């Protein structure tokens, strides 16, 4: 069996086959999604395309061309036909960035951070407080919105806050790290867990003595950066109208806009992560993960490098937090729960600790699983339950199926199984980390 697949893969990965496969998937997927925008299988087919692009042997230039075609043309167009896909990709990008950040902390430096989502909250609340009317509501009762409240900053400040969020989260990371980084690994895990809870509880409770976070009510509305008018009015809209079959609305353009923004940030995140990984800093982190005592004996300043890992990891989350707040125009403490931290951890573990392509894959898989597959499965079951259909052999009527079996309810179960099974059978993840081959050395032979 194994050899059969190996042979098949080898065959598929030689000559012109890779390009045929990728283009085939691309075309079939695109047409599928275009024709039936609600079909999950069509969308998943399309999502296979970037994966194949990554795995198969294709000329780099062709790869980039197809990738750009997919990202810049196909997905936005299809996304306007069904904005839910843009949401899916947006969430994939957000969580991929979070997973990349957490990967620096856990995967590279080997520090288990169970409160990672706290940094995400720091970024989100930074823009939420300054990008909303909250500053003029500091003395009012949460929930009540007096008439005179004004936005404190212009929406264009969003761009500044994108950077501020990164910096703020990094500083928070250092502040957390300073006292606790000397702790042993598993103590650190629990302390960070506590820290994550502390940030959430603060967000929940800082509606008094001054109303900074609006407590459980959450902050809304939060401003979005203005769209360039060409999008809403100009030729782009006219060009898109016949292709997507209707006049795209501003809301749809906003979805496209956040999609691109998220992609740009994730590209930067990938670039930063890969460059850090393959440098003096990244090597130091890996050395610390592998053997702390040996690393420090080799002259690596332990605390400084760990702080750097915390700060770098946190900064990714901070940036994405700002983006998230603007996208949702609403922020509340419920988003930053422990479950969210574990979700990101699951992504990192599933994809492969320390492996950059791995964690991106992990994030995408978990997001699709959570918001598409499990939900769709529940909807499907519910539709079956409304019908008179029966399971043929055992003669079980679908409508007798308990509501309690809806798969969407068992997110934690799925996370839990992924974590345990991966740790036992494949601790290095689905796409394990690979060390860079140093061509320079071997070429000389």
């Amino acid at each position: 069996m194994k050899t059969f697949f190996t042979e098949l893969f080898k065959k598929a990965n030689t000559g012109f086959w890779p390009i045929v496969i990728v283009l085939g998937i691309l075309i079939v997927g695109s047409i599928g999604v275009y024709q039936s925008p609600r079909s999950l299988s069509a969308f998943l087919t399309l999502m296979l395309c970037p994966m194949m692009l990554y795995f198969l042997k294709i000329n780099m230039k062709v790869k980039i061309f197809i990738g750009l075609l997919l990202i810049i043309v196909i997905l936005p167009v299809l996304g306007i036909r069904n904005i839910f896909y843009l949401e899916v990709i947006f969430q994939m990008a957000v969580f991929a960035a979070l997973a990349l950040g957490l990967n620096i902390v856990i995967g590279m430096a080997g520090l288990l951070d169970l409160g990672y989502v706290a940094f995400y909250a720091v970024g989100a609340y930074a823009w939420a407080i300054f990008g909303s009317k909250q500053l003029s509501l500091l003395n009012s009762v949460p929930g009540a919105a007096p008439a005179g409240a004004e936005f404190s900053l212009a929406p264009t400040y969003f761009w500044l806050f994108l950077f501020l969020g990164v910096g703020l989260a990094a500083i928070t990371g250092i502040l957390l790290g300073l006292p606790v980084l000397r702790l042993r690994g598993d103590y650190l895990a629990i302390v960070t867990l506590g820290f994550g809870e502390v940030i959430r509880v603060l967000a929940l409770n800082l509606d008094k003595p001054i109303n900074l976070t609006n407590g459980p009510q959450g902050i809304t509305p939060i401003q979005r950066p203005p769209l360039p008018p060409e999008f809403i009015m100009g030729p782009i809209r006219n060009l898109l109208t016949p292709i997507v079959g209707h006049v795209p609305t501003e809301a749809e353009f906003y979805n496209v806009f956040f999609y691109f923004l998220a992609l740009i940030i994730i590209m930067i995140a990938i670039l930063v992560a890969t460059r850090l990984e393959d440098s003096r800093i990244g090597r130091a982190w890996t050395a610390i993960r592998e053997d702390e005592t040996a690393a420090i004996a080799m002259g690596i300043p332990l605390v400084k490098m760990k702080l750097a890992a915390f700060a770098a990891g946190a900064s990714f989350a901070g940036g994405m937090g700002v983006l998230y707040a603007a996208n949702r125009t609403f922020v509340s403490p419920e988003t930053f729960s422990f479950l969210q931290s574990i979700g990101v951890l699951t992504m990192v573990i599933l994809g492969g600790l320390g492996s950059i392509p791995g964690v991106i894959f992990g994030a995408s898989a978990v997001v699709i699983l959570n918001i598409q597959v499990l939900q769709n499965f529940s909807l499907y079951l519910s539709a079956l339950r409304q019908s008179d259909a029966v399971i043929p052999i055992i003669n079980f009527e679908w409508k007798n199926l308990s509501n309690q079996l809806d798969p969407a309810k068992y997110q934690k179960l799925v996370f839990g199984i992924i974590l345990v099974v991966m740790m036992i059978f494949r601790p290095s993840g689905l796409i394990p980390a690979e060390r860079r081959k140093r061509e320079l050395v071997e070429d000389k032979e």
Partner: protein
Amino acid sequence: MNKRLLALLSVLVVASMVLAACGAPAATEAPAATEAPAMTEAPAATEAPASGPAAGSMGTIKIATQSPLSGGQSLLGVAIKQGAELALEQLGGDLAAMGYDVQLAPYDDQATPDVGVANAKNIVADSAILCGVGHLNSGVMIPSSEEYHTAGLAFVSPANTNPVVTTRGYLEVNRIVGRDDVQAPAAEEYAFKTLGAKSVFIIHDKTAYGQGVAEFFRTAAEEDGITVVDFVGTEETANFDAIIAPLVAAAPDVVFFAGIYNQAGVFFKQAREAGFEGTFLGTDGMDSSDLADLAGTALTTGGGMAYTTVAGPASAYPSAAQFVEDYTAKFGAAPEAYASQGYDAMGVCLAAIKAAAEAAGGTPTRNQVALAIRALSYEGLTSTIAFDEIGDLPLAKYFIIKVNATSKDTWGTNEIIDSFDLPSPGK
């Protein structure tokens, strides 16, 4: 074997499993048609891809529900969904007669805003969905309705009492229940006038709903000169000792709990055991028979327990007896709070779609449905439903209910001590 290859293979296996699992749900568009061809009245629907009503004048119309179907509040969330389901079954006949296949698309918002918003995007992207029923939690409704608003999709809320839901003035957001800024003062008035309370201890559950109600209550209480002994929020669900110690010491006349029954029940029980003798007061979050199982005799001893609600028990509505019977027959349990509101919200949706379809002479647009809702005067189970310019009921019904039950089975013995119609405060 090459590691990379192994990785690829495992990825492929996972992907194919996912695809296999969803090969079926791909048919989510028309599952009834694929799985149970015997059932469908219009087999043509099998061929019709889900691209929406544009495919034919008499296509599929879907009505979404979004409420927590899982988690601690699923009892109420499921009640909304099941009420809507029953309404669709009983009242969907008109639209079916017009040639539409009307389906329910129930979404689970898990009582969290993130899931709610992601689902909302999924809902608005499904052009077959013309109307929606939801949510349970105001904290989820507020961000999600931003999506409904931008997509022009009308939603009818069966349960959200937070004022902000409608005060934003969106055409697409309607509710068939009252508001916290009326409900909480009504509760306060009951405490002040009927119970003659001089002091009150306010506790809330640190949710958007609970805190909102608590704040309105506090404002009203302070205006009437009632001493607010303490104002605490807590996420604790099991051990309230630390809050109860100062509470018992202060011995206020009334404890006002703004939150949901499953937390409040435990609190009431522990507070009563610790020696609190005053009255417990709550709002519509208390309205569940589980409360009686949780708190037991704590509800009837001492000063007893009462709550205000925007959704009276089914017995409060003259036409509801049949509903209770049908609901119990279909789902095997008596309707919980909001089931009748879910029924009515669905009824509003169906009536509006029908009116809009008749006016448009074919499948209506979402905007036509949204406008039709505002123009509607609908005779529901709970009241005659019509909406003002922000989507509130001009006159909403509020009840004050005294609890006589000490276990789930006797929940029906609770008595309505007062009910009144109060106008919406508007924007």
